[in-house]
């Protein structure tokens, strides 16, 4: 029989993906679990495994094209399946492959979820975690009254997103009237339609990558949801430099690189412990604060594909050496696009080290729904006043952005003061 494999929703309400590479061609034999193609979604880059053993009859979509969830991806000829059995096979609900590894003699292409983009911004949050359960079913068409449909069309509301209060969940006029759309990318923003320039060569068009779409969505979501407030500080870290220089070699001997970042992670964790507002989240729906008693520090990493934000889990329980190792590991994975969703979720506070590239101060965008993000600028030699003498100081610039709904100015200042204290007196940091 012929089996048509539809592109499954591999999680979190996925609608589409971009085909990056086909591993199979027409006429090729495949085994269940064998990778069919490499797909980029707004969350990850992943291989899509074959659900069946058979022969590829057709593949749908070329490299670079967008595949829609629920639409055919490949057609497989399954030998020896006829009649009723064939119907049964055809009717099988395709399980989302990524959460159900098919363990067949090393054919476990599943589970190698690579990181696609910076959607760590979302995945790192609780929002993403809640939706982990994967549904292979397409979005069900809402039951709705004719009037509700007419109103939804008129008001440009997706009626399928509304929970109906009528019989059997029917969406009624009242539901439409009471519907308040969740803040999404672009809500409330008037988009000017792009006007084609007279000279056709003046611009080059490129389709948005899934990564870029996700970044755009998450940035707007954060900016529209949080009340951003940024404050700037400079801290003299000569003492820290001396300590780093002293231990750099011993770290190198152990095949690890000691940068300033592990110290900053440590300082941040210590400060977060004293200022829990910065390690929290606002839960408006339930009128409450969520204070987190764990310290997962997200680190923004620049990659050619875009920004990604892996997480150092339970950073408070790690030694400086372990933090350094973790940072190297995550950076390598990020650059190789090997990060998993597991690597990126549940961050509680974010560090962004733009100073390693350049830039002194910035106004970083909060990794929503976290309460703050600390930007680390370039380390500069600067004249400072020490004992009423102007001397050369080693000055690190810091930019702290907080969600002003959660964190008041005073608390933000106390928090950054605390970090500065640790960075200027690293022994104190290690003592605590």
């Amino acid at each position, binding site marked *: 029989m012929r089996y048509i494999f539809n592109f499954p929703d591999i999680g979190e309400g996925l609608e589409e993906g971009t085909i990056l590479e086909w591993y199979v061609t027409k006429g090729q034999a495949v085994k269940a679990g064998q990778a069919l193609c490499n797909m980029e979604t707004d969350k990850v880059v992943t291989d899509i495994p074959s659900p069946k053993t058979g022969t590829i009859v057709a593949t749908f979509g070329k490299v670079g094209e967008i595949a829609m969830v629920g639409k055919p991806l490949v057609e497989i000829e399954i030998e020896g399946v006829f009649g009723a059995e064939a119907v049964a096979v055809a009717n099988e609900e395709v399980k989302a492959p990524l959460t159900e590894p098919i363990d067949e003699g090393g054919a476990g292409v599943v589970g190698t979820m690579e990181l696609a983009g910076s959607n760590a911004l979302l995945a790192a949050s609780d929002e993403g975690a809640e939706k982990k359960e994967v549904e292979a079913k397409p979005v069900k068409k809402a039951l709705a009254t004719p009037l509700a449909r007419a*109103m939804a069309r008129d008001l440009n509301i997706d009626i399928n997103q509304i929970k109906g209060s009528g019989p059997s969940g029917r969406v009624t*006029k009242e539901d439409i009237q009471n519907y308040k759309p969740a803040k999404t990318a672009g809500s409330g923003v008037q988009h000017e339609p792009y006007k084609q320039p007279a000279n056709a060569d003046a611009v080059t068009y490129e389709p948005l990558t899934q990564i870029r779409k996700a970044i755009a969505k998450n940035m707007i979501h954060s900016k529209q949801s949080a009340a951003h407030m940024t404050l700037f500080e400079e801290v003299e870290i000569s003492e820290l430099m001396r300590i780093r220089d002293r231990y750099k070699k011993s770290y190198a001997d152990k095949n690890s690189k000691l940068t300033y970042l592990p110290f900053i992670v440590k300082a941040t964790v210590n400060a977060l412990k004293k200022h829990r507002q910065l390690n929290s989240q606002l839960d408006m729906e339930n009128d409450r604060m969520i204070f987190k008693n764990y310290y997962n520090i997200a680190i923004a990493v620049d990659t050619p594909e875009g920004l990604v934000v892996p997480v150092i889990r339970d950073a408070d329980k790690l030694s400086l050496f372990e933090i350094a190792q973790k940072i190297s590991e995550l950076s390598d994975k990020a650059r190789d696009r090997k990060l998993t969703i597991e690597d990126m979720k549940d961050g509680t506070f974010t560090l962004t080290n733009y100073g390693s590239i350049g830039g002194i101060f910035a106004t970083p965008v909060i990794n929503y729904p976290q309460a703050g993000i600390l930007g680390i600028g370039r380390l500069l030699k600067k004249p400072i006043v020490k004992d009423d003498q102007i001397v050369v100081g080693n000055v690190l610039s810091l930019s702290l952005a907080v969600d002003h709904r959660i964190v008041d100015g005073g608390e933000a200042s106390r928090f950054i003061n605390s970090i500065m204290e640790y960075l200027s007196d690293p022994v104190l940091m290690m003592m605590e």
Partner: protein
Amino acid sequence: MEYDVLIIGAGPAGYVAAIRAGQVGLKVAVIEKMYVGGMCLNWGCIPTKALLESAKNFKKIKQFEEFGIDGIDADKLSFNWNKAKARSTKITDKLTSGVRYLLKKNGVEIITGTARIAADKSVYVDDQKINAKNIIIATGSKPKGMDESLKNAPIVEIENLFSLESIPENIVVTGNHVSTAEIAQFFRLIDKNVTMVANSAYFMVGLDEHLITYITKKLKSENIDLIINDTPGKFENGELMIADRRIKCDLIVNCNSRKAILPESETPLELTERGFIKTSNNFETNIKGVYAIGDVAGKSFVAHVASAQGIHVINTIKGIESTFDGQIYPINMYTVPEIAQVGMTEQEVKATGFEYKVSEFPLSANGKAMIEGNTEGYIRMLSDIKYGQVLGVQIIAANATDMIAEAAVLMATEGTIYDVAQTIHAHPTVSEIYMEVGFEAIDKAIHK
């Protein structure tokens, strides 16, 4: 012994609530003074419509020659009141025994007697004390009494109409509502001299003005003397003296506006200004766990709403999710032709400030109506301009009371003019007028 629910009154509110209670597994009893089925089955909805059917046939048979039937001598036809009454009673008996059967089948105990609610929320029937977690009052209503100045007249309460052995020639029907017009028309159909006396403030209140105008004209065209008068008359020497008129009067039928039949309660029940039991949106009275439904609660005076209220209250007691809108229900008038209305009247639509549209389609352009010889009437649809939501429908047609159900479903499901126009209706049927009026609302009816 304690009941989950004790229902006082076995009319269409009470008995339906009782059946529903039995169905959902509640321990339930219904207390009825006299008539299982209440006014609806015993002297209201069912028997009066049965009499009307006899009268309608009495009139229709005179027109049978038109249909090609010879041999009917109009002069030899006469209306046999007692036979018509017997037929009606037969139907009533069948239905009331059906209700008794359904009550029994669903485990409902029927207690005969008059209920009194004690201060501790127990109920006494005569001397028997009954305890219940919830009490539902469904005791109904009766017409207000006649004015003192008319007390000497030969008055019959609608309840006692069926005890009359014969019908005199000159009948006066007093009352304001659809059922008054039905009764007036019944007597006219059997060739009596009929006067209808109504109050200007309440005459056909709740109906669309277009329908009121139609009814007024219709009654007059049938030589029913319609007197809209606000001062009570006097009765003297077989004549009713009212509004400077002297009208021959052998019988006054009391179809006056209704008043609540209140059960005795040691804890006073809070009442509305009009003397009905005041209830919350879920029909709970001022006493917790005591509900009032149907006429006695004064929110509506039709059987079908009373039944719906009963089901809603039982669902609420049982904890079954239930909502009660109660805004969309048909008002039916079993006249010739029948008149039916559902949803908002034009006056009400105007008051809401909706931008609305009125569309009409006449029966005279409908094939089936011609076939049946019933071309008098029309459908009238009120819809909002923006979305085309159907806000109200009125029908005048031989079977309007059945046809209105389509509009009720349409409106209950928030239907629009597009839905009704795009629904394929069978041909030939009178119901095609729905499709036509839908098209008319969108743009233009096909057959107009």
